[in-house]
């Protein structure tokens, strides 16, 4: 589980006139993981030792000059490079005290940025899209610089990435609402140009981040509507010929962040590793409005991993160097260390406790003697467990509860005579257990036909695998086939009560379609019909009255029922069509669904109309005549 640790302030922000600007132009890594160079938006560059929160040096250009790109550190030469007033490239060393006395060269075209990464050479990206290696540029500063971009096309963002020992300059441009992405290798002069798919009209990406993984450059970009897209570009992509059409850049929606009402203003998303994204300026899904958070999201499981409230205004800027996030907010620049361990589903769901904690717990509960669990009779085990569970700090005992359950289950598996349903149910009830901790528990309950425990596990375990869910389902259906206790639904169909009781829980477990589908296919056609009958029964009941409250049971939602119907039809459609017994059921279902669709389309219309109503300002009814008092100012 990713975590954000306690942060600290690196420096205060000198507020620019413009309130929406943090006053920081850029932050670049320096010699090691503990040094950064901070360029402010006007005239100065400051070197910080991060852990000491201390400036080591600062350089300022003369009054009247402006730094137009953030200073970078060239690790080969131990020099800093910056650009002032768009055209003047300045290079200096740490020993140089007065910046004006250091080297400077004027180039023939406006510079957008200078980029430098460890292991690469500094490259200069011009505003019109040309790229030069710094060395070759400085050898002839006045060399002509070609125009790569079309008219009205302007760079919005750029970076450089080292991939397969080659350096890439990546930059994104905008031209009349269209967005393009360029990949350029400065020493090869090869350009790849891609066109970004259009988002909703008028929306431009708020932030970009690029990284190199598995022979591909991964781009992550955030739109004001909260959509985060990922595009993968091969570094060995086709070089672009002159005037060739820009290729469309395939993208996939990583996730749609909840943005609340309206659009995001200043926000930024930064890829931390293949599974984690740091996001700032997006509302925390469970915090109130008006609060700004720095969040880490897991992209694989789309879960929020960590969040930290940022006091003061957020400027939508975010940098990350060596496991530290740099974020300007309010009146300060904060450094927030983070950690993104390799993720698993359990950790993504927050169910995996950290090993460290478990170790400590073990030390505390040395009295948990394994002897009892292995050999003691049922009653003694029960007493022992009750003793444990009566403790007030039960939540702290989570690891030992897991251990206890595991050992009880393994003993039961090994010894057919041993089974402690009450104790196991009690353990499940603590909610300290999950399926991953004790994977055999649910299967054991199924085997022992302890449907109550099954139900309990299905209800309380957040991580029941689809295969197990399906196994439960099959068992429930099978046993209801054998038993002939039935209820008769409104349409005269006969439904077994056993299933009625247990099936509800199955419908409410979490699952993923893709994983569940293959298991569902194992059901026999008779089982499918029965299950479908049951689902239809539920659906009918739901559509007719407030079924939810009537049985004192936890009931699935209408959507859950519908999802199961869809899945079941999906898995067995051909079989059902071929089965004569299913025909009536399917026709019935179709008729009902059709009427529902019609109903919903009518509801849609009403909704549209009512929505219009809401838009209409409540106007005062004016009659044929009135005498009113007005005031003019």
């Amino acid at each position, binding site marked *: 589980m990713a975590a954000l640790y306690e942060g600290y302030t690196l420096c205060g922000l000198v507020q620019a006139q413009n309130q929406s600007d943090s006053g920081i132009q850029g932050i670049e890594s320096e010699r090691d993981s503990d040094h950064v160079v901070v360029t402010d938006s006007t005239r100065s560059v400051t070197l910080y030792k991060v852990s000491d929160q201390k400036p080591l040096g600062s350089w300022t250009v003369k009054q009247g000059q402006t730094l137009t790109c953030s200073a970078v550190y060239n690790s080969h030469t131990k020099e800093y490079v910056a650009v002032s007033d768009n055209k003047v490239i300045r290079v200096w060393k740490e020993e140089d005290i007065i910046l004006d006395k250091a080297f400077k060269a004027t180039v023939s075209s406006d510079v957008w940025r200078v980029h430098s990464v460890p292991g690469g050479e500094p490259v200069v990206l011009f505003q019109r899209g040309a790229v030069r290696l710094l060395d070759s540029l400085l050898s002839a500063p006045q060399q002509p610089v070609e125009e790569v971009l079309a008219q009205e096309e302007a760079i919005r963002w750029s970076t450089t990435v080292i991939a397969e020992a080659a350096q890439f300059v990546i930059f994104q441009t905008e031209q009349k609402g269209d967005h393009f992405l360029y990949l350029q290798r400065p020493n090869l002069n090869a350009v790849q140009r891609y066109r970004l798919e259009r988002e909703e009209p008028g929306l431009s990406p708020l932030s970009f981040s690029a990284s190199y993984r598995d022979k591909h450059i991964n781009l992550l970009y955030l739109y004001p509507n909260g959509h985060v897209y990922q595009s993968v570009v091969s570094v060995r992509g086709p070089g672009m010929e002159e005037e060739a059409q820009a290729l469309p850049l395939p993208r996939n929606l990583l996730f749609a962040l909840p943005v609340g009402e309206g659009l995001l203003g200043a926000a930024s998303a930064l890829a931390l590793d293949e599974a984690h994204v740091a996001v700032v300026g997006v509302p925390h899904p469970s915090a109130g409005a008006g609060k700004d958070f720095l969040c880490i999201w897991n992209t694989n499981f789309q879960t929020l991993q960590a969040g930290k409230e940022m006091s003061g205004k957020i400027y939508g800027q975010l940098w990350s160097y060596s496991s530290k996030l740099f974020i300007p907010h309010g009146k300060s620049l904060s450094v927030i260390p983070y950690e993104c361990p390799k993720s698993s589903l359990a950790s993504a769901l927050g169910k995996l406790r950290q090993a460290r904690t478990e170790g400590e717990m073990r030390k505390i509960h040395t009295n948990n003697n394994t002897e009892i669990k292995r050999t003691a009779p049922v009653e003694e085990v029960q007493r022992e467990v009750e003793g444990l569970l009566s403790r007030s700090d039960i939540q702290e005992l989570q690891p030992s509860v897991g251990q206890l359950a595991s050992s009880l289950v393994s003993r039961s598996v090994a010894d057919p005579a041993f089974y402690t349903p009450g104790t196991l149910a009690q353990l499940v009830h603590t909610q300290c257990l999950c399926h991953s901790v004790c994977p055999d528990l649910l299967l054991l309950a199924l085997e022992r036909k302890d449907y109550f425990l099954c139900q309990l596990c299905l209800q309380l375990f957040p991580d029941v695998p689809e295969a197990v869910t399906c196994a439960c389902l099959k068992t429930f259906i099978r046993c209801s086939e054998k038993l002939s206790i039935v209820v008769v639904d409104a349409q005269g169909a006969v439904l077994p009560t056993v299933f009625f009781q247990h099936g509800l829980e199955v419908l409410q477990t979490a699952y993923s379609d893709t994983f569940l589908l293959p298991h569902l296919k194992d059901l026999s056609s008779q089982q499918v019909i029965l299950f479908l009958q049951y689902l239809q029964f539920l659906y009918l009941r739901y559509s007719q009255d407030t079924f939810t409250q009537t049985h004192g049971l936890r009931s699935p939602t209408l959507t859950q029922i519908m999802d199961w119907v869809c899945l079941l039809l999906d898995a067995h459609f051909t079989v059902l069509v071929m089965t004569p017994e299913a025909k009536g059921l399917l026709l019935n279902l179709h008729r009902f669904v059709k009427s529902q669709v019609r109903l919903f389309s009518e509801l849609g*219309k*009403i909704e*549209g*109309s009512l929505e*219009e109503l809401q838009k209409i300002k409540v106007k005062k009814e*004016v*009659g*044929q*005549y*009135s*005498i*009113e*008092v*007005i*005031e*003019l*100012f």
Partner: protein
Amino acid sequence: MGEFKVHRVRFFDYMPSAIRAMAFNSRTERLALSRADGALEVFNFADSYFQEKVIPGQDGRAVEALCWVRGRLFSAGLNGEITEYDLENLRPKYTMEAYGGPVWTICSNSQGTHLAIGCEDGTVKIFEVLEETIRFQRNLDRQKGRIISLSWHPSGALIAAGMMDMIKVFNAESGHATHRLLVERGVGASKSREVVVWSVAFLSDHTIISGDSAGKVQVWDGVTGTLVRTHLVTKWDVLALSVSRDESSLLAGTSEGTVVQFQFISSTVDQHDKEWVRTRTFKNHTHDVRALAHTDTAVVSGGMDTQLVVRPLLEKVEKNTQESALRKIAFPHRSLVSCGKKAGMLLFQFHGHLELWRLGESDGHGKPGDSLPVKRKPEKLIQLKRKGDDHICCSALSPCGGWLAYSTISSVRLYRLQYNGSNISITKVAKLPKVLRSAHQLCFSSDSSKLFASTTHSSVIIIALSQSECKYLHTLRPKSGTRQPVHLMSASEDGKWLATANSDCEIHVYSLHKLKLHCTVPVYSSCPTAMAIHPTTSNLVMVHADQQIFEYSLVQKEYTEWSRKLQKQGLHHLWLARDTPITHLTFNPRNPAHIIMHDTYMFCIIDQNLPLPDQKTLFYNQMTLRSLPEPERTSHSHSFKICKTFQHLLCVSLLEDHSLVVVERPLLDIASQLPAPVRQKKFAT
């Protein structure tokens, strides 16, 4: 500025009449339009679309088609007559029976020498246009079935006639039909119904374009008589067509309220063959578009929904200018309400009758925003039906509420009103001086002792009123020799002055003591739309169609200091961007620096003591001022106090007790009284 008690009046059920026909004179930039009640209006497109002239209608006169011949205006109607209008005296000049039954259409050749009319009996009749009149020349070959639409070929040698199920092409010289173009009927149920060719257009390249009741716009080759192309544009009727002067664009108006544009262009870039391609659809009407005009820069349309719409073609005008804005002209550009200020009475002018109302009363006090309890309801005192066939062209109520006068083109009637609070008696003044035959404008002096009536050549007849008799006093005549009618007249509160304005943009001020012309205000290029003389300073304030405001001192005979300052600084661009003219102007006796004026969408009190707004000032600043604490308001306020609370205004006036009267007629109320359109958008579909 202060609080006002406002009588908000919505009981004037003014209902404009549907637009029936239109003709645009591109030389003079005048648009003539006729309405279903027979009234004719002339708009000056060169002067902010000002409604320059109105010729009242007449019972039984239905104008089906209009036609300009140079500066002369002709109409024809289903009463079987051709009428030429006297645009100086705002009345028909003469009417001529065509002897062909109802006349459906009239059009002139491009040379302006001949008129052709299409009659119910199947004849096309050609009239020669003479100096003072027109003369029947001959009939073209008579056809079976009525002639609905006509169009001359620009050469003048051929005439295309739209009929039932067909179009015929005539040789104008020989009178013989040379081609018969069969128009296909609609499909389905309408197959059995004859198709009506509502409109035809004959272009110089011998292309004939027709619009018909089956919803088609068809392009024909007039040389071979073959159909080139059919565009189905509506399920209902295509009622009107209009071609641009350069014949590159064509408009078709439909029963659905849409106007469809076609352009003569090459359908592909490299192709040189041009064809008529459907390009745009404008939907600015809810009902039938009966009349269309294609000016060089705009689509002008009108129909059942009574509004005249000018929709600029954006490629022809500069974007984001006033010229590029859509204009809807819903109300006449003159006042239909006269206010008896002292009596608290309102006189409403309809074309067929007058209504006299007494306003209600309230003794309550309230804070701004409140509605006061109405102690006494308003009351309709009199509904006076006009006599004769001619519609009312102007009316006036004396400030004391004791006199009422109206005029048609044939007579002036004056009534004495006696009202004692519960009973009203009305007596017609029997013997009016003979000189008073008709009036373009009527107005009473503020003490109700005189009636002023403007007649031919901008002259004004003064009648002295007394209990016992009414006597002709004098006729005031301008020295300019103008032949134009007066459209504005205003007498000063002190009885010293009378100002008149005419369509030549002249403003004459007469001294009523000396009974002679006092001065003529320097002529400004735009027509005045409202004016009034200040009760104490004797300054004449004028507002023009281009929204300019002037103040002229009658004593000094020069523009006042304030007026010069206003001209020097220029009016705020938002003031100039308004698209309805100021139609009434009055003063506040309590505060001599206040001028009250209104257009359709707002009323405004100009405080001459406050600084004028410059271009950067927030012009509509009432909301801002309201939110500011009292002491800060002064620093933010400027001279234009604009109130948009009341809308679609027909009159704003100040009563003697300092309460305001606003007469509203919401356009929605007018729309709700229209018949159902052919296609109505269903709620939420």
